């Protein structure tokens, strides 16, 4: 009966709700990666950071009973992963992309190892705010139940634009990303700037992971993240290293990821797995359309190893 009341509108409403829900990890990881890449280094290991964050958040929430402590623990675990990445990349002649791949494997392995006892118990999860209370349609209300972390991410994007463009911290960070020599000439340690940027990036990616285990899907298991981290890294390229564009791109990817479950909810189960691959296919298509072999990308930090 509830389904019948809005008919096929269920699908767009569910996609919208999914976009608001599923986009949060994309948003946090891409904002974090955005900061790291603006400092001139790429951290491909955020997939591992995301899974570590999800595990730490769930474990902490289960042990302390406070999901917010879980979010904090996830951020700290992410920052530690960032510290590991940055301190290895700080050594001469070490390739940051390869270290990222290593941390992707290490972070996932460590999270599975430590998270083994967490698969059974259920931990308290994060609260959400009902923006859909005005509506009688249950699907609309479900779609507009918005998690606080999402709102924090929405606020973070313009804040980062401001911080990167006007603060001293942002200027120094961008200098390190555009020309390491210039930053050195100004008397800054490029390694230290990038270390901080990678740690902040890891912190945000960890928080993105906490959303996975503490809100949606809201449990810990080994199949929790399948490539959201790497999709978010690709998304930063698509968003041209601009935090606001990262936000819109996250919504787009969230919507694409919600397409499969939304269609399944109205009984279209044909091609469920293909629809689940929609974010990856979309990422690939966007990269094909927007990249060019002839020029470097607009807005790309000049020191970045993937654009050089």
């Amino acid at each position: 009966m509830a389904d019948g009341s809005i008919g096929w509108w269920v699908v767009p409403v569910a996609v919208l709700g999914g976009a608001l829900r599923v986009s949060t990890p994309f948003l946090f990881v891409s904002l974090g990666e955005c900061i790291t890449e603006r400092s001139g280094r790429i951290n491909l290991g955020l997939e591992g950071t995301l899974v570590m964050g999800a595990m730490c958040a769930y474990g902490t929430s289960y042990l302390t009973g406070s999901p917010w402590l879980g979010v904090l623990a996830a951020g700290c675990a992410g920052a530690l992963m960032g510290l590991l990445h940055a301190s290895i990349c700080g050594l001469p002649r070490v390739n940051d992309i390869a270290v990222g791949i290593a941390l992707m494997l290490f972070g996932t392995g460590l999270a599975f190892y430590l998270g083994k006892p967490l698969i059974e118990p259920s931990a308290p999860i994060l609260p959400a705010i009902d923006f859909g209370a005005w509506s009688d349609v249950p699907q609309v209300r479900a779609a507009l139940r918005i998690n606080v972390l999402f709102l924090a991410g929405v606020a973070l994007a313009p804040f980062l634009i401001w911080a990167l463009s006007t603060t001293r911290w942002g200027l120094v960070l961008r200098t390190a990303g555009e020309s390491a020599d210039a930053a050195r000439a100004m008397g800054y340690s490029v390694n230290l700037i990038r270390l901080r940027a990678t740690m902040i990036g890891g912190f945000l990616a960890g928080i993105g992971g906490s959303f996975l285990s503490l809100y949606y899907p809201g449990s810990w298991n080994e199949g929790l993240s399948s490539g959201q981290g790497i999709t978010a890294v690709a998304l930063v390229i698509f968003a041209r290293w601009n935090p606001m564009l990262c936000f819109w791109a996250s919504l787009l990817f969230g919507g694409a990821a919600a397409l499969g479950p939304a269609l399944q909810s109205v009984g279209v189960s044909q091609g469920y797995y293909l629809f689940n691959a929609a974010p990856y296919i979309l990422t690939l298509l966007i990269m094909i359309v927007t990249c060019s072999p002839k020029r470097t990308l607009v807005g790309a930090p000049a020191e970045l190893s993937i654009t050089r």
Partner: protein
Amino acid sequence: MKADVPRSAIAASPVNSFEPLRSAFTERIGGAAEYVVIPVLALAAALAAFGIFVALFGKNPLDLYFYMYRGAFGTAFSWQNTLSRAAPLILTALCTALPAQLGLVIIGGEGALLMGALAATSTALLLPAAPPLVVQIAMMLAGMSAGGVWIALSGGLQHYRGVNETISSLLLVYIALALLNHLVEGLMRDPASLNKPSTREIGADNMLGTIPGIDVHWGLAFGLVAAVLSYILIYRTAFGFAARVAGGNIRAARVVGLGVGRLILIVCFLAGAAAGLAGMVEVAAVQGRTNANLAAGYGFTGILVAFLARHNPLAVIPVAILLGGINASGGLLQRRLGLPDASVLVLQGMIFISVLASETLYGRFRIFRRGP
């Protein structure tokens, strides 16, 4: 002036008659020894770190090393287990090692493996009446082509569209997995497979047998041949030389008129073909059908093997056996020490990090330096 006297005295002393010998050592072996000693040190450091890690959880690290050795190389059965796992690892490692000659970082071997498995299974199911040898050859060709196209796609996108090949190859892993799940749960599903959706079996006659004498499936031989052929291609042919020139300096390669795009497409196709062959081997020698079990992480471990072997196709062989051994010992560690199955992943991650960090050590030890 005074300082000169002892120096010339040393020059005349009999001790210095070893100097030619020493420089011959550093000239011939020292350079290569550096590429053995440093990875071995990195490996030892990772094993030590893993020992400390399990000690934190109250397990005895000495037990850990003992059971790892037992499970990997201790008995004839464990050797057999190790070598059967090394076979796909050699092939998936080539998927990263070959493009690395061109300076490309391809990490999508898992995707090529899955596509190879899918193509090989489909081929076998489409040829129900053909003799086994024909089916097996057709499976190999189909698996290699599917895997090859999958990785050539990443290489081609990199060259013609400037799309980062590391990210695109990893995205293609998830797309391949989705495609596999879609087909296995839909079009190709065997109605009899209830709990674990799978395709129909390729048939016992079509399965690859074992190599006589060592009881390891023929996939190992495929891996060894592929590694040796890759080595010859890269280091002994004009094509391989061109690839390495392009990998060292892409502008120089263009100046001397090398077709970089063609090089990238061919090398990436061969790389993907190796991983696709691994998929065919997993179907035709181990699983007998395609299902989600095939995504067992051989593609990802292969990346580690390639980096540890410094992308040398011959070095890939011993490293794959080593990592195959670590994989094989996972079961014993679970049973005897109660470690989670992810402990193998943690150890692999530690080895990977340690090996990459050790990159910084090259050229720092005087003993390895060439010449006086």
